[in-house]
């Protein structure tokens, strides 16, 4: 049993505040919840909405239609009243047939003398309508406004109670799920990645603001004191990636945060990290392109660029977490692989995942840096690019006894420029041997659904939730569907994949792009040949129902 609440209105009407309030309050009463945001590329006006799905069981994806629409503008009402569940309810900040009218700002003005607290009224109304005790919301208001003082708390509390009161008569109309074992720890994509980076030992972040990656950059900036992280806003993305190379050369784990367009400016320095064999973490928060594209929408169009951009050949790894706990784990794993193989590593997320809030078992905040695998014993005879069987050379950092020479030209073991072509071949082989080590440590894909299902969905990154829920819905109808999810999309280890594919009679790759980039990468390795493609590229995330519709089940 689950309810999808959609708060919609113009940018600047406090949607975000109301949504965040409700998310935390619902978590405090142990509901399972998952929230997603859809907003336009503007600071004021337009049409934005904040969806909060609540349930008595684990949720993994958003839903298309709303059970409860809270429309703060007439545009919101007109545009979104067509996407309601059959017995959906609408609270509207105006007069319209078939809606419950509450003038949020006026009520707030009356009750607390400040229209800006209209979002507390809205939150209270939602709580009341769903039959939850508004006291939980009031309690949460106490915590969140603690620094702002009693007066603010009491005023907001009054607004919330008034909201609930105004809908008391309608309370219970919607069958609201009971809170049970939902966690009271609410994570979001940005802080999950950020916490993974901070606890993993990242000490230097150089980046240039670009949605949807800015949320991760802001999180890292907020952690400057707590985890001693230096966050530098670079003049452009070229500086950001080259700075990350310098910082990691000097011995501190470094990362940059960007989106597709910014990453396209980092491509030369990515090749530098490959040639100098430097561990650098690139957090690529994808949005639809090409060029400026849809700045605030979601998509999975930058897998090919992450894999093949960058002149010359060098190993790299690419992780793509499927959800929130995974965003934390993948970031730490990416940091470790980067340092173990002295190579650039990507974590691919997208606007949908960055802005997603979900209550999950608490993420461990303790500082547990990954093994930097730095050779602190190196002396004056140290050479940076010693040829080794694994291809990984002992890595010292400047400032100790060893002199550390790195060079973007082809170089010999000492790090001096070479034009000796036999040395060149040895160095190419050495760098690429590291890639073989990465294959051996690749995270295997995870299987979900009936083991014997003949039709297998294959997906990567954030499409996991919608596919998993589609599998569950079909299972309820007695139809078996398998799901193979990749949270590491490069390098791939065919031995971990082929067993899942061999005997299936239908394969469908689900991707948030139009050309089936992951399907091509699988084909490149002789895997899943002839698979169908389920492509979405309108800027919105997949939902279980959309997956079902595409499979012909709706």
């Amino acid at each position, binding site marked *: 049993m689950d309810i999808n609440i959609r708060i919609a209105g113009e940018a600047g009407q406090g949607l975000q505040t109301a949504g965040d309030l409700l998310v935390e309050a619902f978590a405090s009463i142990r509901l399972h919840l998952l929230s997603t945001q859809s907003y336009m590329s503007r*600071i004021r006006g337009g049409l934005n909405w904040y969806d909060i799905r609540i349930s008595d069981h684990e949720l993994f994806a958003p839903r*298309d239609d709303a059970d409860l629409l809270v429309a703060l503008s007439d545009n919101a009402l007109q545009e979104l009243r067509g996407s309601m569940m059959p017995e959906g309810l609408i609270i509207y900040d105006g007069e319209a047939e078939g809606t419950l009218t509450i003038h949020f700002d006026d009520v707030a003005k009356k009750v607390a003398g400040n229209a800006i607290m209209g979002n507390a009224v809205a939150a209270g109304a939602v709580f009341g309508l769903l039959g939850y005790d508004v006291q939980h919301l009031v309690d949460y208001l106490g915590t969140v406004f603690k620094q702002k003082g009693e007066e603010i708390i009491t005023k907001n509390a009054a607004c919330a109670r008034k909201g609930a009161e105004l809908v008391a008569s309608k309370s219970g109309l919607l069958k609201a799920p009971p809170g049970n074992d939902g966690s009271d720890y609410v994570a979001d994509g940005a802080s999950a990645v950020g916490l993974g980076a901070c606890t993993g030992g990242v000490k230097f972040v150089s980046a240039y603001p670009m949605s949807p990656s800015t949320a991760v950059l802001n999180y890292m*900036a907020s952690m400057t004191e707590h985890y001693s992280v230096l966050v530098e806003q670079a003049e452009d993305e070229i500086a950001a990636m080259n700075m990350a190379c310098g910082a990691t050369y000097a011995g501190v784990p470094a990362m940059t945060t960007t989106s597709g367009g910014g990453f396209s400016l980092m491509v030369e320095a990515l090749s530098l990290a490959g040639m100098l064999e430097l561990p650098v973490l690139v957090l690529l928060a994808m949005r639809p392109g090409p060029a400026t594209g849809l700045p605030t929408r979601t998509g999975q169009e930058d897998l090919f660029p992450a894999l093949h951009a960058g002149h010359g050949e060098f190993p790299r790894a690419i992780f793509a977490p499927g959800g929130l706990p995974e965003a934390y784990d993948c970031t730490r794993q990416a940091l470790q692989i980067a340092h173990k193989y002295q190579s650039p590593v990507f974590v691919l997320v997208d606007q949908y995942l960055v802005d997603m809030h979900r209550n999950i078992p608490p993420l461990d905040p303790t500082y547990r840096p990954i093994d930097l695998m730095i050779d602190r014993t190196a002396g004056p005879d140290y050479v940076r690019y010693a040829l080794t069987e694994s291809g990984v050379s002992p890595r010292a950092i400047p400032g100790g006894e060893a002199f550390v020479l790195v060079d973007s030209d082809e170089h010999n073991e000492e790090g001096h420029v070479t034009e000796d072509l036999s040395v060149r071949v040895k160095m190419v082989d050495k760098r690429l041997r590291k890639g073989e080590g990465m294959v051996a440590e690749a995270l295997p894909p995870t299987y979900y659904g009936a083991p014997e299902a003949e039709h297998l969905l294959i997906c990567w990154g954030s499409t996991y939730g919608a596919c998993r829920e589609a599998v569950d819905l079909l299972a309820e109808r007695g139809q078996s569907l398998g799901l193979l999810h990749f949270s590491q999309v490069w390098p791939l280890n065919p031995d971990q994949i082929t067993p899942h594919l061999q005997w299936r009679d239908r394969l469908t790759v689900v991707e948030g792009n139009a050309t089936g980039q992951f399907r091509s990468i699988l084909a490149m390795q002789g895997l899943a040949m002839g698979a169908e493609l389920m492509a979405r590229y309108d800027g919105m995330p997949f939902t279980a129902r959309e997956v079902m519709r595409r499979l012909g089940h709706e």
Partner: protein
Amino acid sequence: MSDTQTLSAGLRSTPPVDPTWCPGCGNFPILKSFDKALDAAGLDRRKVVLVSGIGQAAKLPHYVTKPVNVFNGLHGRAVPPATAIKLANHELEVIITSGDGDMYGEGGNHLLHAMRRNVGVKAFVHNNQIYALTKGQASPTSDAGTPTKLQSYGVINLAFNPIAAAISQQCSFVARTFAGLPDHMEQVMLAALQHRGGFALVDILQPCVTFNKLNTYKWYKDRVRPLEDSYDPFDRAAALAKAFMWGDEIPIGIIYRNDRVSYESQLPVLKDGPLVSRV
């Protein structure tokens, strides 16, 4: 390509030319003065190309009242296409309108070398001293101490001084105006549009009412000082002195100009007419 798969709500876009700026934004008066200056300059709009990067300011080309040609490129990358459009067809009037982050941050190198190259392009920079569209990070021109979500200790970097930088490279036309003085803006814009001697830079102080709580309309109003009538913009030393004035007094007007000749006027390959006529 699979079938359409949009949210059933069929989210229709807002009418194309309705500005997405915040009410009270400094971009509105700039747009107004800009439209008037275009008319005053008597330009044939079919020969006008507005080039912009990405940011709130860079949206202006979509909002001008009468139709013009528009090249809305990448963040920080308005200057190179504008330069090339002018070289490809120097009968076009090419005007850049973009933000301070766009022109002085991401696009700093292009601005620096555009002043050296001196192609006849006009650059109007909406300097709101903040990254507005990405919700309030510091821009190169943010004053030291400005608090932002990203600069945990407030801005430490010294603000970029566009006027002094331009004069240091002998940019052929350097001016500053303020969104709060529409007439002053229109005069300065018109002078820039009529400048024939190559690259023109106009830095327009533009309050961002949403994210820049420091440099407000009032803050600027109390400090801008139109240049005295006796001022001679061809006097480089005087211009440099004005260029370093900020804070209590901020000089506005045509601060520096010289008699350099435009790049396109010196290229033999263009002497027999625009390149586009030779295809």
